[in-house]
């Protein structure tokens, strides 16, 4: 339980909004009913504000501000839908879509249409991060052609959740990638296969091997899937598991992010150990 927090008044697109002190501008925008796109923002992670699709105009600020990480201050005047903010969001979406495969990124298509983003205008020669998927274990696949470098997997693997530190951002600039040391296979790395990186990945660059294989076969169909949340039976912690079932088979396991104990994190057994069911 959090202690009660003082409320502050913020102005979002002309409307007064009252949010608890310490809230982000994004929290305030959502309270005001504004739908701001986000990619690198994670509900269980400290905002990295790397993707910049959530930028808004804050009065008195020279540049646009990332809504996901800027703390709301009393009296702040925020505009979410100005031409300047929309322009940046449009171009950021174009830059991402022209360099990265966003085909499995939820809502990407919708946002691109909303903002009139046209990634094709950078030409066919535009550099991309396309590369073959890394399939080096039986549990999950790393398809970095879909990676937008949001740092969420690194943070989930590192000090924010798992403390395994198996991956980091390596290289610099456009050539930066998520990598193990010297790019060794996961099986030679510090990975413990908790799958918490898969849980937070916003683009499907990290996915269950089952999902990856079914997509390759063309049999992956989310509309045919049901989800059931249950309690993991392996140990006494009592983590919640959400089983995704298609054709009477478990195809993926996630965990509710609002669980006060685990916040969506699991271990290898809860995440991948469903073969006995």
């Amino acid at each position, binding site marked *: 339980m959090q202690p009660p927090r003082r409320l502050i008044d913020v102005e979002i697109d002309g409307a007064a909004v009252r949010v608890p002190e310490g809230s982000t501008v994004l929290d305030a925008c959502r309270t005001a009913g504004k739908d701001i796109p986000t990619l690198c923002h994670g509900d269980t992670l400290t905002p990295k*504000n*790397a*993707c*910049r*699709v959530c*930028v808004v105009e804050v009065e008195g600020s020279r*540049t*646009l501000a*990332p809504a996901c*990480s800027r*703390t709301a201050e009393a009296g702040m005047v925020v505009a979410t839908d100005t031409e*300047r903010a929309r*322009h*940046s969001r449009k*171009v*950021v979406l174009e*830059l*991402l879509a*022209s*360099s990265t495969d966003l085909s499995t990124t939820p809502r990407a298509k919708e946002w691109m249409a909303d903002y009139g983003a046209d990634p094709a*205008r*950078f*030409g066919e*020669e*535009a*550099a991309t991060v396309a590369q073959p998927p890394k399939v080096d274990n039986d549990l999950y696949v790393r398809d970095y052609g879909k990676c*937008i*470098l949001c740092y969420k997997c690194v943070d989930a693997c*590192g000090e924010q959740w798992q*403390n*395994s*530190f*198996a*991956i*980091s*951002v*390596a*290289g*610099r*600039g*456009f*050539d*930066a990638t998520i*990598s*193990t*040391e*010297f790019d*060794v296979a996961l099986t*030679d*790395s*510090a990975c413990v296969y908790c799958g918490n990186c898969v849980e937070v990945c916003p683009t499907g660059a990290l996915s269950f091997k089952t999902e990856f294989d079914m997509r390759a076969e063309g049999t992956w169909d989310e509309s045919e899937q049901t989800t059931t949340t249950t309690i993991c039976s392996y140990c006494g912690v009592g983590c919640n598991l959400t089983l995704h079932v298609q054709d009477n088979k478990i195809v993926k396991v996630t965990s509710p992010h609002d669980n006060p104990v685990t916040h969506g994190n699991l271990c290898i057994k809860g995440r991948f150990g469903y073969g006995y069911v």
Partner: protein
Amino acid sequence: MDLHFGDAEPTAEERAAVDALLGPPATAWEGGDRTAADLRSAARAEQARDRLLPALHAVNDRVGWISDGALTYICRRLTIPPAEAYGVASFYSLFSLEPRPPRVLHVCTDLACLAKGVREVRDGVPSPCLGLCERAPAALALEAGETPKAVVYGGSTAEDETPHTVERPEPPVEDAVPQAGSPGLVLLGRIGVVDPASLDDYRANGGYQALRRAFELGPVGVIREVTEAGLVGRGGAAFPTGRKWDATARQPDQPHYLVCNADESEPGTFKDRVLMEGDPYALVEAMTIAAYATGCRKGYLYIRGEYPRATRALETAIETARARGLLGPRVLGHDFAFDIELRRGAGAYICGEETAIFNSIEGYRGEPRTKPPFPVEKGLFGKPTVVNNVETLVNVLPILLTGGSDTKLFCVSGSVGRPGVYELPLGTPLRELIDLARPAGTLKAVLLGGAAGSFVTDLDVPLSFEGTRAAGATLGSGVVMVLDEEVDLPAFLVRIAAFFRDESCGQCVPCRVGTVRQEEALHRLGRRRSEADLVLLREVGQTMRDASICGLGQTAWNAVESAIDRLGAFK
């Protein structure tokens, strides 16, 4: 921390290089010999993350590259996850994670050298600006070994086909200062006059009088004088120094840190190099005063890795000052403790950004942090930190002695007969400076402020912070690069774009992808004019300016924009 290390072992040489820096390993947990005691208790190394960059340097300097085994050994010694250390090592361009010969020639292909005719690199690796612009075209050879060597080459002409085969002694520092020895110089007054290695020489020429005055004034008095003198930062952002010091001094959180930003990497900038090479004690004294005023006991001097002579000069200066009681537990016998740790960068322009420099010192990737919180509140190691550029700090000495100089250093390069660092009063018309440097050829434009600056054609613009701003330009770090009609403007713009693409840290999308798209569009425009590509440049440029995390992305489009708008590029 329960870390997973691979099986790769360091060679004896790699181990020796790391142990020379960190001392021998205390336990088997840190990669030492296994003893009976190790089997009984799970002793582990203290985490010393901030030693990572020096340790990587130690191996790279000794062997020329960093192997899997060497990296693993460093990680064991410092309790750092190997994946993270790999992420850090691969961030810096001076480190190699692949085998390479011990001797590597870094050939500058950047703006000033490009303007002097560098086209292709035959026997070396292309390098961003080496800060040797007055000697363009320039190169730097780094040779790994037990005593690593660094040799600088400059001023090679077309007849001098293979500059790197002949080792020549470096010319004296004052050769970079055409005004050297002139009476009016304040900041450059000691360059060429004192022996940079001699503390006695420095003291005989007014050295350490400013520090004595500072002790008389007390910290509050020093800040008052700096504020009243109206000193603003010389690194490019022109923030009032007194306000920064005052805000840091007032922070209740302890300890406070001082960081001197000597990671001078803006293409065309070399004034800090000249100051450090020619008058290193001035910087040591100025840092001591800044630390006294803001309540810091420890200062980091972060110098760019491509400055071997400045690094040597400062190593000597810091050691001598320490031995003579000018650094250490009781500076000049006063109840004030202060020491300086010299840190070498490893080839990353972004580490000159005021928060990226903290990450680099702390042993993380040199990625800028989000502001707020600002450094005065949460800076190095999360503590209140004052960050100042070299020239800014050196300005404090005349402020305390004579009330200030009101001069500024300018780095003149390109199509001039006397390139070098010039000291002139703020507000001097650009024409006067260029005339001093003896322009050669028909002038086409002047690039003010470096790659992050902009082109101007009006030579009457006054060289002051306000004057350049009014002209839609910036003084930035004081770059004045003169371009004549011979310059291949499209190629020059592509080089600027390539610089930003290479130096983008990759953290935020507008800069990581935007700098690539900017370069691609400029390549296309160099081949044929296209209205669509010009629109694209403007749209991407505006997004980089509005939505990037730090100044690198925010300024990556400045020069290109001014070339299109003012020079009629691609018309």
